[in-house]
């Protein structure tokens, strides 16, 4: 139905695409960062997602998949408009996104209202599987709380008594540190100081001096991307690496080891994925990813891959009818997802119940040492579903 014959180029923006799509194609909206700090992460998620879809012959729930891509710029103030565009103008059946927690929360708000099927392939904000949880919203990644909680136990088991935490003053950092503190103190340790750096400031020197003066048994940290690189380099340069062990949520050493130039060697981190996992799914996944994109997959690629897998399971149960969210939820909740990270299930709040691995940075990889917390579920505070 061509509603308008205006030939203005801006008409696309104004009126969207109104021509009918082939009846059987399933439109998947990929709302991921293509510019800015998280652009690389968005790319990995997209690769992982497409890899799985290709493995399934380009189909989800028996329907051909058609992608609609949108750069979310990691800007929450544009998020509502962007998700609205995907749902209302591009008329996607499913949305996948995103990395930034604030953007993901805005997306979840709209998806909850419109009932659009949505999978979050990264953002670990407690909002999404907490107060904003909904039958049609799933997360294929983790909650910020999970790696922190797992590491708290590890730190206590290592006999550390006093720990200092340091992170950016923002949601993800606070939730991760909160998880760490919870389990560390349950197991007899004490967080003696919680330090925060204004986000996204990367000047750490003053707080490193403070850490040196406090002399804790260990430091727990949550940083990602450029901040993670700089923090590890500064920590090493300040001479603290040898005297005060540094522990972190996995993002500290994921995709950042090369840039850290060897300074991250030997760091212990916890995450729901690791290199050298001994399972068949992972091996196949890695080979296939390497062949398709000529690079090594990372945790973000896995999350993208599993996002597609969750959709595949859900949509298979309803023959590709993405509007039947209740049935989809039931199918996904009862399924076991065969992820490269190991098999996991989804909780009632639709967050993965998964093993969190303890890893040690070696070269440019993070091989697994042990399972830090098996089948760890997120508390999902505030979820009424």
């Amino acid at each position, binding site marked *: 139905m061509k509603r308008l014959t205006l030939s203005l180029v801006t008409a696309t923006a104004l009126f969207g695409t109104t021509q009918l799509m082939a009846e059987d194609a399933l439109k998947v909206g990929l709302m991921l960062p293509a510019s800015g700090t998280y652009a*690389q992460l968005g790319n990995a998620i997209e690769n992982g997602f497409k890899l799985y879809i290709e493995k399934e012959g380009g189909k989800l729930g028996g329907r051909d998949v058609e992608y609609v891509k949108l750069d979310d710029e990691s800007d929450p103030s544009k998020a509502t408009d962007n998700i609205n565009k995907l749902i209302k103008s591009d008329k996607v059946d499913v949305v996948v996104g995103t990395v930034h927690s604030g953007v993901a929360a805005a997306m979840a708000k709209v998806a909850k209202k419109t009932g659009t099927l949505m999978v979050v392939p990264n953002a670990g904000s407690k909002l999404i599987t907490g107060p904003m949880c909904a039958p049609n919203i799933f997360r294929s990644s983790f909650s910020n709380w999970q790696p922190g909680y797992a590491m708290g136990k590890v730190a206590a088991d290592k006999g550390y008594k006093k720990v200092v935490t340091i992170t950016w003053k923002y949601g993800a950092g606070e939730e991760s540190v909160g998880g760490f503190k919870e389990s560390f103190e349950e197991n007899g340790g004490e967080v003696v100081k919680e330090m925060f750096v204004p*986000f996204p400031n990367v000047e750490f020197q003053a707080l*490193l001096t403070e850490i*040196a003066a406090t002399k804790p048994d260990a430091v727990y940290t949550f940083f990602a*991307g450029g901040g993670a690189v700089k923090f590890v380099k500064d920590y090493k*340069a*300040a001479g603290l690496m040898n*005297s005060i062990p540094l522990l972190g949520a996995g993002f500290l050493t994921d995709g950042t080891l090369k840039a*850290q130039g060897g300074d991250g060697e030997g760091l212990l981190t916890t995450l729901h994925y690791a290199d050298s996992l001994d399972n068949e799914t992972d091996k196949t996944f890695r080979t296939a990813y390497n062949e398709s994109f000529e690079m090594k997959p990372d945790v973000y690629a896995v999350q993208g891959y599993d996002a597609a897998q969750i959709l595949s399971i859900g949509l298979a149960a309803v023959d590709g009818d993405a509007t039947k969210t209740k049935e989809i939820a039931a199918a996904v909740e009862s399924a076991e997802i065969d992820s490269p990270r190991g098999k996991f299930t989804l909780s009632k709040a639709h967050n993965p119940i998964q093993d969190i691995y303890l890893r040690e940075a070696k070269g440019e990889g993070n091989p697994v040492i042990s399972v830090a917390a098996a089948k760890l579920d997120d508390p999902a505070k505030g979820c009424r579903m």
Partner: protein
Amino acid sequence: MDLSVFLIQLLNSLQYGLLLYLVAMGLTLIFGIMGVINLAHGSFYMIGAYMAYALAPLVGGNFFLTLLVGLVLAVILGYLLEWAFFSFLYDREHLQQVLMTYGLILVFEEVRSLLVGDDVYGVSVPDILSGSIALGDVMTYPVYRLFVSAVCLLLALGMYLVFTRTRLGMMIRAGSVNREMVQSLGIDIKFLYRVVFAAGVAIAAFAGMISAPVSSIYPGMGNQVLIICFVVVVIGGIGSIRGAFFAALLIGLVDTFGKVLLPEASGVLVYVLMALILLWKPNGLFKAG
């Protein structure tokens, strides 16, 4: 906080302040002399940092050679940019220039993405400066950071000498006060502006290159330093190289001790400081000149 920790924190703030000064210096030059509010200054810093990463393999991995080549490229870039994008703007309203620099930010960031990609990179410290000095019982201080501070101090001194002792410096100072006067003295103001702009770009890029080994290189890094640089320039007094120097040190102090003593408010402290200073001295600490 005992004395030794206090002294180390003082060193930290000095070192951070000097680095800030290095980045802000080019901004205050362009700002004060040409009256151009250059939002793209952060992009030049970013370009410098990426040059430190991307040029190194081309010149055999020697850091100092990379610096030199990068500096030359930055001067050329600045010279061409002024010619292509700014030379026709001086008679227009200042805000037009702001719009122009805003457009340039977007373009630079995308060109960077197309050429180098969106990954995070690190640049290793040159071997000769890779050592560190023990401070207290657990802490050490990397030699490279001291090297950066020394370079900043040298540059500050150099700028001071250029400004007070050379004909170019005289022209620049005169130009910042009165454009017509410079022209009546028979100085080619167009050429002067081009030189100043090239110098501003080169200094920003140099700051990016030299801080690349201690910082990390990531998309959007330029925007992060931009605002703090403006704060430095404004607190110091627009166009005042000396003012920028003291303002940068002041911000280094406030930021460093703020993070330790008032962690809850550390994000906002610098801005409170700026507001207070400007309410007390509406033209910054040091007037231009």
